[in-house]
């Protein structure tokens, strides 16, 4: 596996906070979980209506998803398993060369 399979189980989740309260809660959670923010470029940009895409490791995704469900914050899972997405997007030749 590429990158020693480190991204197995990682997810990319899209959230669009509908209120400033939701945005504030998300920002706090992002800081706590030290998420990898795909967009926007910085947590400081997150506000009401901002499209945020976060890459979250497998062990933290349960915490985040539980929080989102409890707070009734809508979300969409863009990438269910980042390792699979990574390997599906590369040709076999590229993967072989890189390994």
């Amino acid at each position, binding site marked *: 596996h*590429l*990158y020693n399979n480190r*991204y197995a189980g990682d997810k*990319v989740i*899209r959230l669009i906070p509908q209120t400033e309260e939701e945005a504030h809660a998300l920002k706090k959670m992002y800081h706590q979980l030290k998420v*990898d*923010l*795909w*967009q*926007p*470029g*910085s947590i*400081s*940009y997150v506000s009401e209506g901002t*499209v945020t*895409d976060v*890459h979250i490791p497998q062990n933290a995704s349960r915490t985040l998803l539980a929080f989102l469900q409890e707070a009734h914050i809508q979300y969409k899972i*863009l*990438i269910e398993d*980042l390792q699979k*997405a*990574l390997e*599906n*997007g*590369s*040709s076999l*030749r*590229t993967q072989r060369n*890189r390994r």
Partner: protein
Amino acid sequence: SLSDYNYELYHSLEEIQSWMQHLNQTHSAFIQVFSIGRSYEGRPLFILKLGRKSRAYRRAVWIDCGIHAREWIGPAFCQWFVREALLTYKTDPAMRKMLNHLDFYIMPVFNVDGYHFSWTHDRFWRKTRSRNSRFRCRGVDANRNWKVKWCDEGASVHPCDDTYCGPFPESEPEVKAVANFLRKHRKHIRAYLSFHAYAQMLLYPYSYKYATIPNFSCVETAAYKAVRALRSVHGVRYRYGPASQTLYVSSGNSMDWAYKNGIPYAFAFELRDTGHFGFLLPEMLIKPTCTETMLAVKNITMHLLQKCP
């Protein structure tokens, strides 16, 4: 040969640098490869000068890709641009005119250390790889390190953040090297184009403030025509406008710096997609992405050549 290199795959830094050196040897009538400095980890910063060789004074266009390491479609497009330019010089009147009248300075991989690191360790690395003596975190956001409202809104003072602006402007040797080059050649560089991902946008200044640039008319028209041309290829929609309004406010970025330093037409592309694959744009989408972007870049270049002062 051009046909042996697969432009529909992502390539490692070493492969890209070998490709550049190969073109330097085989297409010397159009290409000259040289280094403008060294990265933090000591790698050469190669530029590819593309254009029909001439001693006459010519205007130039600067193109850079890969300021952010994980945005691999950027370097893929830079390579595609060079290939298309060489392949279509004889058959495409617009390309022939561009290469006869302009020099293109192309930096296929701006953030060479970060790009290499994203290939070998962390696919989603964004910053450079410089070290910080006081913190364990490495790297500076190379698009927050320019001296234009440096480290203001949209940048972070903390070294562990992905938008860390650095200890001071142009602290990163990569940024310093490019800034020095652009300063030296600013009198004949007419356009600055920087390629990022992902958002499907064509942006122009300002990014650091909400204000209209003085030459808005020509810039806006060029952007409109470019996204219209881009959409004509595969129907993909790009938004366009000032970066501060279309994307978000960010200070210390290269596009604003280029504009402030006298390059009148500065643009930043955010290439495909809008989040379905994000940074993991599959290799099978390199061709359609690059084909449509190529048309947009040609449009911008021709518009600036013919219609703008």
